[in-house]
């Protein structure tokens, strides 16, 4: 499993990578996961529905991440954008 973070000026960066079946690596993944959520990030897991359509799931704890997920993507939490009138 890879923990990725969308970062301005970089694209995604790799935060942590490990096998959730290995306790030591899972602990590192959980710590990295908590750090990002504590920093105010949202975490999403890209998934595929039974009919093959792709979507994402927002997760709030590591326990919610499917064990077979390949990636968890962190990104800054959404905020209401500019109020300006601009065109």
């Amino acid at each position, binding site marked *: 499993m890879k923990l990725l973070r969308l970062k301005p000026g970089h694209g995604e960066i790799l935060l942590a990578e490990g096998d959730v079946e290995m306790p030591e690596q899972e602990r590192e993944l959980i710590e990295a996961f908590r750090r990002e959520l504590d920093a105010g990030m949202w975490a999403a897991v890209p998934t595929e529905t039974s009919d093959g359509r792709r979507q994402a799931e927002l997760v709030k704890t590591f326990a919610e991440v499917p064990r077979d997920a390949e990636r968890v993507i962190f990104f800054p939490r*959404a905020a209401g954008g500019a109020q300006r009138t601009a065109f």
Partner: protein
Amino acid sequence: MPLALGTAALVLLALVWELARPRLIDARARYRLRRSSTVRSAEAIDFDPGRERRAEQRARSLLRSCIDDHDWAMYRDLGFLRVRGGLAGRADVTEPRIPAAAGGGHDGSQAGAAERGVLATAGPDAGRLERPAAYAYLIYPHRPIVAYLPQTGALLSEYCVAFPERSGPRGSARLPDSDDVLAKWMALTADERRLIAEANMHLPGRQIDPDMVRRDLLRLSRWERERRGYRATEIDRVA
């Protein structure tokens, strides 16, 4: 006499100084402000076009790996993504059938039946036209999300939302274009209600030109028709 002239000169100088002083003080303040803002923005932005371009390339790769092939092709070719709305019940998206004026050529039920026939065997996108969607969104990079009715093309509202990075002291404060699209796509498909609740909602036309959106909907309709035509040709060729 010299004493009188000297006194008059001193008084004149004092008067001129009093008159000019506020303007000089203003000018000095403006100069300082301009100088400090120039220095600060150069430090804060630290814009590097090469780095931004590389970031965008990485972002495009990630976006491509997360969304459907059909959606990726849409973003690659048209510059925006369409996402179905889910709050009014799950339904698939179909664009309004644009008549011949939009560059088509389909007419009536024969074309529709043929289209459905093609779609029935046309791969992962097949069946998308079978049920109409209540509403859908267009996702543009770093612009508001636009909600519209696929059946009529009527624009409903704009949802202005951003993903501001607050942790970095330097460098660009906004995500690469494709990462912004990916963030919106993930948030919309995962928790539409939450994203919409966070956004500033406006009537269409607040930030995005409605004519541009209507043109984009026509482009999307034409693009999907061409893709269907291409697939049909491919299926015929294989058969």
